[in-house]
């Protein structure tokens, strides 16, 4: 595959040219602004040899490429969010050319503008909660002399495991509900795989909260309160994020 395409990073309200910073997108490509439908899109020109469908599928399997591209994408979205309210797009949103990108903006139109209004003055914060107890280890069947003893032991272990699972679910719900109370909106991402977090205990809540900037102190206090009632490092706060988890906008 040869030729180029237009990588679309984010959508904002139009920004006057003198307020547009000099930004570099994926692979160091210069970021440009295209406008239509009362919206602006941050774009850069990418090579289809890297971002064409087949190349992209292969690259997504390459962790180094994935990380570099995700970080570059995030840098553009963050730079934009520092200037103006920003709707981030999904990683590797590729349009055939600038006209196609403008066509997208036109079609997003009023719904994107309404979403931008809703996101004004707000930031995303991430809260992760880790379990405080694990299920007991898998039984050593050799320790059970008879079939009956084995079954009894197995039953006890299953009950203990259920209790641990219930406790985790309740803790996650408690934290989530408390923070929903000081946020404008909230989403639960899937808890991250323990192999990826490297944490000693499983993650039980992976949530994102949309918080008013001028209510952040309340949010922070609520997080502090929840953390104080739990073992160290079981509550993790990240942010502020651009509103990644709150910009979902299906195109009709």
């Amino acid at each position: 595959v040869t030729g180029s395409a237009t990588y679309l990073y984010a959508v904002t309200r139009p920004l006057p040219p003198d307020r547009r910073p000099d930004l570099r997108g994926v692979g160091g490509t210069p970021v440009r602004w295209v406008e239509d439908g009362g919206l602006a899109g941050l774009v850069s020109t990418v090579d289809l040899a890297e971002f064409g469908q087949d190349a992209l599928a292969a690259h997504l399997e390459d962790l180094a490429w994935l990380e570099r591209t995700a970080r570059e994408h995030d840098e553009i979205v963050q730079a934009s969010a520092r200037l103006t309210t920003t709707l981030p797009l999904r990683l590797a949103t590729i349009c055939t050319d600038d006209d196609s990108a403008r066509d997208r903006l036109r079609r997003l139109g009023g719904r994107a503008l309404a979403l931008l209004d809703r996101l004004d003055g707000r930031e995303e914060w991430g809260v992760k909660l880790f379990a405080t107890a694990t299920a007991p280890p898998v039984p050593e069947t050799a320790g059970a002399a008879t079939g009956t003893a084995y079954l009894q032991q197995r039953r006890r272990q299953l009950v203990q495991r259920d209790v641990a699972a219930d406790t985790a679910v309740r803790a996650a719900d408690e934290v989530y509900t408390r923070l929903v109370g000081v946020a404008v909106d909230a989403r639960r991402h899937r808890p991250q795989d323990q192999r990826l977090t490297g944490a000693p205990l499983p993650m039980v809540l992976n949530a994102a909260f949309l918080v008013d900037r001028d209510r952040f102190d309340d949010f922070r206090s609520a997080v502090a309160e929840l953390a104080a009632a739990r073992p160290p490092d079981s509550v993790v706060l990240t942010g502020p994020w651009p509103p990644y988890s709150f910009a979902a906008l299906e195109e009709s």
Partner: protein
Amino acid sequence: VTTVAPTAPPASGPPVQAASLVDLLDRLLGVGVVLSGDVTICLAGVDLVTVKLRALVTSVKEAGP
């Protein structure tokens, strides 16, 4: 989000942690404005998540003992 935000005042409670790659991918692959149609590339979110986890888990295993 790799640095502590200037908007975060020194408050009690857990410090703001640097975002991990997985935190970032949760957000970049899962949500965001979804475009579809005649755009050249639009892999479904589910496919991307699967790809992501396979790539990450594979690398974790390789890096392990």
